[in-house]
């Protein structure tokens, strides 16, 4: 009882503590999101700060107009997401395991692999334009351009996700491995039956974060290809940007596309959270 009373007594001060962050999040995230939804229902003129109400016309234009590139850009974005998720998982987890095993220079490797994550994507994109040209002009062909920008995205993201995996790996008690070895398990069996199940939460977190980040891919397409060649790297975020800031009076349409992207992303993440629901492993 006394504990409950204490909790109640502390509540106002607790709200005070979170108030600054709460206000910032409300203003810069939720209020902005609400505004963008409002804008998406209008033929919005950003210069005048008002527009004509058009209902769902902007959404209908994006999904149903024959010349709309929304579906094409969504397809490209989804393909990019698949490549990014596979690429990041297949590079950052092995890197984390290698790093963990290295007897010497673990800190050095961690730093080296992490460096791309703190390098601005614009710089990375400019450097990779030249690297990819040396590798047979991957950016020049519609069949390979999206793969090329995905490689760049994976290269940048791997180091950061490697650190997350490294943290996850260090949480796995050594006892499990020792026990498995006593039972005669080989390295592959250890990986499948101990590492992967116990890394489940980290895996889900990394996958969700990579999916969210990859759905918002923009910089590579903007800097490296401008959506080309032949619209093969046209992604949703780039379409949103162009319509919002480069074409006159298309802010409402751009906002509608952004919300459609949000809807797709939301569905993806919900499915994933259901399938890989977080739970404790080997506890019982």
């Amino acid at each position, binding site marked *: 009882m006394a504990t409950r009373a204490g909790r109640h007594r502390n509540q106002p001060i607790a709200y005070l503590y979170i108030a600054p962050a709460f206000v910032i999040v409300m203003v810069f995230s939720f209020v902005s999101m609400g505004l963008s939804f409002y804008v998406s229902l209008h033929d919005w003129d*950003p210069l005048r700060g008002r527009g004509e109400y058009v209902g769902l016309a902007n959404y209908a234009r994006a999904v149903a107009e024959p010349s709309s590139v929304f579906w094409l850009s969504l397809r490209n974005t989804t393909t990019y997401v698949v490549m990014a998720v596979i690429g990041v998982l297949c590079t950052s987890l092995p890197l984390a395991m290698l790093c963990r095993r290295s007897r010497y220079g673990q800190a050095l490797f961690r730093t080296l692999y992490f460096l791309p994550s703190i390098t601005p994507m614009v710089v990375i994109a400019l450097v990779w334009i030249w690297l990819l*040209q040396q590798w047979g002009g991957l950016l020049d062909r519609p069949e390979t351009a999206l793969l090329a920008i995905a490689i760049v995205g994976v290269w940048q993201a791997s180091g950061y996700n490697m650190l997350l995996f490294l943290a996850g790996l260090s949480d796995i008690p050594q006892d499990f491995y020792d026990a498995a070895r006593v039972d005669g398990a080989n390295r592959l069996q250890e990986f499948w039956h101990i590492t992967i199940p116990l890394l489940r939460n980290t895996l889900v977190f990394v996958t969700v974060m990579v999916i969210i980040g990859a759905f918002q891919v923009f910089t590579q397409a903007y800097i490296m*290809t401008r*959506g080309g*060649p032949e619209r093969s790297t046209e992604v949703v975020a780039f379409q949103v940007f162009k319509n919002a*800031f*480069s*074409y*006159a009076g*298309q802010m409402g349409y751009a906002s509608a596309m952004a919300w459609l992207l949000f809807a797709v992303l939301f569905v993806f993440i919900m499915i994933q959270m259901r399938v890989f629901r977080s739970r404790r492993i080997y506890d019982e």
Partner: protein
Amino acid sequence: MVDLLERAGPTRGVLAWVRRSTAPPGPRRIQLRVWDWWSPSTTEDYARYFAEIESIFEARHPDVDVVFQAVPFGNYEQKLATALLGDNPPDVFQCSVYWAEGFYNRGMLRQLNDLIATTPELQDDQFVPAALHHTRRGTHVFGVPHILDGSCLLWNLDMLRTDPNLHGVFERGPDGALDFRRIRFDAVRDWAHFRRIAKQLTKYDPAAPGQPLLDDRGDVVQAGYAVNAYGMGAGPFMPWASTNGVRFQDRAGTKALFDTPAAAQTLQFLIDLYWKDRVCPPFRRELVAYDQFQEGRVACVLAGTWSGKYLVRNTQGWMGFGLTALPPGPNATGYKTMTWANMMVISSGCREVETAWEFIRFLCGLEGSLLKLKRLEQNSPRRDVYRSEAWDAAVKERPYLQNVPRICTVGDPLQHTQIQAVEDEVEPIFEYVLLNWPEIEVGRGRFGSVADALHLAAERVNEVYDRYGHLVRRWDAQLGRRVVQEED
């Protein structure tokens, strides 16, 4: 020392602050905010130009403090919209033809008819006609021409000189001798002649007839002409199309006009230069034609009349190049290109209209234009500049300038309506056609012919124009504006 401190942004600000703080108190100073994508930090020449503009203007208007703000070209639209919304717009700014009409339609620019009417030196007859096209909508004038530019062919005269069969392209001096520093305006008679010259200037591989000779790195040794395929939209196409009687859009920006047999003939001409005559370096995204020209690998490229000064700077003084307009195609007569004039405008939120207009009067008048010529080697939209001794001296010193006035004069107006949206529609189509012509030729391409591709491009552009037209009508109604558009 003071000069050095004046050039850098932060120290420049500090110096200005020190001067203001130590100056005796005087009457209220008017702050004139000027936006430009040119900047004092671009080069030393620009630094001197801006410093001189500022010091002359402030000396004549002691109550005015000119504050330049450099705004990147790519962000201009967004920044201006934000500044106007935030009630903090520039008073006066340089405006590209790409945005000018759109800004005016949205009520971001002040109409200038009343101011021009009282200013003899900025009347229409003071300017080259090609410079006036983009400064108005119907009878509403919203800009004063500031610079004049046109697309042109940029030739490597050193390469032309090495082939005696091509010496006919050079001017002759008063003594009748060939002047290898100056190319004739009409050096190329027509497309067929251009094709022959481009072939003559291309070094072909003796081991693989018809293929350009490549070095160890796979780069061409010497190509006659370069076409950019990636990300260029209608850029490499329209100047050539104009020489074949094609226009991109109507004046009001309501209809695409390039869905014609003459336009298809033009695109086919460019395709043939690349795929049949093999006079071009391979299409590669990171290799821009202009850079290849600069490296001495390409004899001729499509560039702009502004290119010369940058070329001289980048090559540390090399001036073995010349500029011409584009030769006539089979469907038209006369030399052509695309011309545009960026302009000085006054924002609708300007608080010091009289001072802003004084600034424009100075900048776009003869004095300001000669200053641009002196400091930036920039030609002018003004007629009187070309009659001045300063221009004669500039041409004497830099012979490549010789054809610039004529090139700008013969140009058709550059397409300007919703340019980014339009380019985004035509770019993938042009890219596809240029990159995949062999597939199209054998009937396996996405388009049956070049004409089909242009038809689709025009359809898409018309959709952009329709959407934009709807917006413009709404803006006009909101602003209570009635614009009578001139006929084409």
